[in-house]
């Protein structure tokens, strides 16, 4: 028994050589073959769905893609930390700001859209809510941890309202619609299609986004790439962004055709898809490379400041432990892939 278990010197040397060879192996072929890309994404009415439905992401990245549907940006963050998500498409600016503050090993590589009016406060028209003071004693719902939640808390803070003046409930979009129909809530901060359903069912828009955008509560949907994936496979990352660029071009040039494809992919009618798509400001890839948004490599744009401001707010909310210097958010934006994708 024992002589079987104790290796001879020759076996030991052979084993060590084998181990060394195995350790050296991944160094060479890393660039050659791109492994299956794990992409975390939302089912939503965005041009990304065109590229997904048409297989453009696979074509341009020259790789197989494993699509992982997520329900929140938090899941993308957790997936990247655990190494099971390589690319996150559609993650909101607040989970991204949280992730960069916490040192999650990923970079913001491009934007999808500036959310603007697409996420907005909807209140019950019969409640006659016209000024911030009218919100006292009201029940509002929003998906916690989302960009809408961030905006809603920003609205309360900038108007001197506290969580004891207003009840804020954590509900996912579909449950917001149900709670609204039962008249359990007086208002909600959410996106379409939930927002559209509230508006159709006795709701009215209470405009907050213009003032909030000016005060530094800009929210956006973004694309992130895990460092451990993007660094060895830059071509694939550029390819993914090219695929999104193609989809965005199709939407700009032919919104009707694009809406039909998006509708099918997201499981809504072409009309609903078209209405939802219209609410977002999809920033053209070239424009993202200007100082107003992401900037260029070495010359980070103003969006880094938005991320920092978002992070500072999240610290106040006890959502994250600490925010970082502006440089951390500037380094968290990596526009080299985008620059090559539009070249």
């Amino acid at each position, binding site marked *: 028994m024992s002589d079987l278990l104790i290796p001879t010197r020759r076996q030991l040397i052979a084993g060590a050589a084998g181990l060394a060879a195995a350790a050296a192996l991944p160094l060479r072929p890393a660039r050659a073959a791109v492994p299956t890309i794990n992409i975390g994404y939302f089912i939503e009415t965005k041009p990304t769905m065109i590229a997904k439905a048409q297989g453009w992401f696979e074509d341009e990245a020259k790789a197989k893609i494993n699509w992982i549907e997520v329900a*929140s940006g938090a899941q993308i963050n957790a997936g990247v930390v655990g190494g099971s998500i390589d690319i996150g498409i559609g993650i909101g600016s607040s989970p991204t700001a949280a992730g960069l503050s916490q040192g*999650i090993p990923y970079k913001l590589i491009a934007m999808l859209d500036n959310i603007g009016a697409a996420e907005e406060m909807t209140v019950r028209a019969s409640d006659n809510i016209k000024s911030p003071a009218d919100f006292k004693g009201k029940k509002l719902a929003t998906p916690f941890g989302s960009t809408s939640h961030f905006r809603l808390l920003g609205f309360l803070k900038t108007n001197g309202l506290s969580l004891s003046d207003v009840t804020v409930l954590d509900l996912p979009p579909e449950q917001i619609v149900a709670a609204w129909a039962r008249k359990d809530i007086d208002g909600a901060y959410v996106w379409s299609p939930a927002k559209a359903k509230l508006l159709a069912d006795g709701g009215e828009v209470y405009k907050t986004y213009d003032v909030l955008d000016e005060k530094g509560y800009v929210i956006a949907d973004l694309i992130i790439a895990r460092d451990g994936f993007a660094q060895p496979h830059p071509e694939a990352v550029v390819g993914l962004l090219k695929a999104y660029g193609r989809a965005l071009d199709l939407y700009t040039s032919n919104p009707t055709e694009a809406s039909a494809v998006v509708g099918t992919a997201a499981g809504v009618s072409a009309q609903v898809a078209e209405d939802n798509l219209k609410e977002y400001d999809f920033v053209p890839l070239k424009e993202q490379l200007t100082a107003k948004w992401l900037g260029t490599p070495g010359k980070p744009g103003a969006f880094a400041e938005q991320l920092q401001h978002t992070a500072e707010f999240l610290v106040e909310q006890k959502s*994250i432990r600490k925010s970082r210097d502006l440089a951390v958010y500037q380094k968290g934006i990596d526009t080299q892939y985008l620059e090559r994708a539009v070249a």
Partner: protein
Amino acid sequence: MRYLRARPQWLVTIAAIIVVVVTWAAATWGGLVSDLLLPTPDELWSGGLDLMLNGYKGYSLGGHIGLSLLRVGLGFGIGTILGTLLGLLMGVSPTIDALAAPFIEFLRPLPQLAYLVLLIVWFGIGETPKIVLLFLAALPVSAVAARDGVRNVSPARVLAAKSLGASRAQIFRHVVLPSALGEIFIGARLSIGIVYATLIAAEMIAGSSGIGWLILDAGRFLRSDYVVAGILLIAVMGIALDRLLILAQHRIVHWAGR
């Protein structure tokens, strides 16, 4: 070997805890594990202290604990009392058993999350759906325990009581119920476990309060210090609830096991 066996059990327990804590401290302080996955001991300490002193998002820590205990107490209390009554009836009367059994058997293995959305649609988003969810978790377990308790009463004892001239009510009160109490308590302990496990699901409904919600919300931003502090708290609360039931069991069914 004999030397080891002579050591008291609690020493082994403490040694196991120390090994886990030391491994944790070494792994986190040594930088082996990111603090997104696990907090360092000092982060956990300061996170826990912060929760205690400043509360969490609108409620004090005591407020979160109180609301969770209230939900568990109401759901478990109503569910176990009604469940036990139903179970006793089912045990005594085969007709009631035949009537209620399919529903109880249907409900018992059903994962609570399966009907979560329905509860929101039916009962809204206040406290009602949360308590109903916990109630539905407690009811079938205690009903089955009480029914089986009644069924397992030794027929010899019932016959003995009968031959001594006891009425049906007397047999139930003095023979059946005391014999079934042991199983009823086992059912109650099972049910508090299930109710407690369902608490997080219940607090997912339009949450903004409760320990379960606190853990979920902190997890959203990978706040591992709050998450672990919350988990430790919820575990201690769970052990305390279980011990309370054991205490009650020893007082009420003091003859059991003798």
